[in-house]
């Protein structure tokens, strides 16, 4: 028996292929052009999108497309030990991979000479905050009316006590053998984020991606529902679609 999985049940009571409880909400901030909020396990992340808008300084504007900027930031109280407010190297790298996970779906040529800013604030962190952030950020982009060819949704798989599991919690991420965040454009099947930390056989690697994509599929349902709730719930008892 492992210390993290017993009889197929994980410390928090989940099965190996189960997601943590989640909650998605669209349109949560007044000033932003688009916004969304996600809870996934203990993660609480809020995302705002501003743009397309004028670029400052002007020389970074591009004549044939928009510039995408992204900031992933953790509030000082979001972590077990207080985090200083200045961006860490980890936050800078994660900002980059999140931007690159979202950019493939944005029709950047529609907005020449402009910028789109995506700001993610982690109010409380748990394992998989970058994935949860991507899932919420795609909703915030949609809420801002940005042209996209698909949504993006993300979920991690990993190896814990020798078993491939879905959606690692904080302790599973720290004590487990491997963690692999994956983001995908769900309708096009294009993978836009893949990271791996830890040793996997090629078979486990394939299993992990399959598992992560299955998690993404379920979260994508939740994304669709959140957008419905926001845009098509015209009367309380009239569910659209």
């Amino acid at each position, binding site marked *: 028996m492992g210390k993290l999985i017993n009889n197929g049940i994980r410390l928090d009571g989940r099965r190996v292929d189960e997601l943590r409880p989640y909650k998605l909400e669209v349109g949560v901030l*007044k*000033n932003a052009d688009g916004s969304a909020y996600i809870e996934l396990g203990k993660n609480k992340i809020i995302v705002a999108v501003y743009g397309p808008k004028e670029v400052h300084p002007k020389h970074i504007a591009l004549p044939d497309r928009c510039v995408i900027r992204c900031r992933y930031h953790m*509030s*000082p*109280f979001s972590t077990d030990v*207080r985090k200083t407010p200045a961006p860490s190297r980890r936050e800078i790298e994660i900002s980059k991979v999140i931007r690159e996970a979202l950019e493939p779906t944005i029709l950047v040529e529609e907005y020449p000479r402009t910028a789109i800013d995506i700001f993610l604030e982690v109010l*409380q962190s748990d394992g998989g905050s970058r994935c949860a952030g991507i899932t919420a950020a795609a909703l915030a982009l949609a809420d801002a009316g940005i042209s996209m060819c698909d949504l993006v949704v993300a979920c991690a798989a990993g190896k814990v006590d020798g078993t491939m599991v879905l959606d690692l919690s904080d302790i599973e991420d720290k004590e487990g053998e491997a963690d692999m965040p994956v983001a995908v454009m769900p309708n096009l099947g294009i993978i836009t984020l893949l990271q791996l930390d830890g040793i996997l056989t090629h078979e486990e690697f394939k299993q992990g991606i399959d598992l992560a994509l299955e998690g993404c599929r379920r979260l994508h349902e939740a994304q669709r529902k959140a957008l419905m709730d926001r845009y098509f719930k015209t009367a309380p008892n009239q569910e659209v679609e």
Partner: protein
Amino acid sequence: MAAAKKSFIMEHLRKAHMIELLAKGRRLDGRELLDYRPIEIKCNIIQKANGSAQVNLGNTQVIAGVKIEVGAPFPDTPDKGLLVVNAEILPLASPYAEPGPPDEEAIELSRVVDRGVRESGMIDLSKLVLIPGQKVRAVFVDVSVLNVDGNLIDATSYAVVSALMTTKMPVLEVSEGGGIVEKAEYIPLPFSTIPVSVTFARIGDSLIVDPDSEEESVMDARITLTTVEGGHLCAGQKGLAGGLTYEQIMFAAETAKIKGQEIREVIKKAVASVG
């Protein structure tokens, strides 16, 4: 936060209109001059923090989180714990906020709220000493501003006070060797009075409380006065590039006492609801 770029003609028109309206005792959103917008306070929303509170003041939204650590006291106050208030106006909060270290507006916000709490004597820092001169508790109150719609000082102040009031910290014991042992038991922070700030804007000759962003964009001067339980003043800060008359200041001081008591009840109720 960079000042909003303004169309200067529109700005003058809007200001003229607002002054006219205020002279009749009315505001754009229908409030009376001395009305606050609705204040919503939700405590204990961040489980990883020792204490936390979200305050919505109209559309202004802020979250305060308290983290308690063990640190060294300042050399000149060996017998006092540490209290650090730090507010960040996050870039997601406004089209004019930008990523980067706090600018002078955010620094003033942090320091005004910090002084309101500190000078009120709300937290008895002398009770946070573990080993005098060596180890004390350090109380970090960090505030993330999520949406800017005016009067950040009051929203931040109420969030900080509410978060402190709901803070639980582990019992710590000093072992013989000078090590610190954390117990599984939790106790509240030693706090007494509840400081409440009340912020006024002067627009033309009118004094209003709790300005929203639109009112702030045309205000001439700002003054914040903080009172303690019972109504005495404990902190004040005039801001912006305009002045105030002697009478306006005296009126603000009286009003801060009255409105402060009302808001103090709102805070108490919110805190009690999670008690």
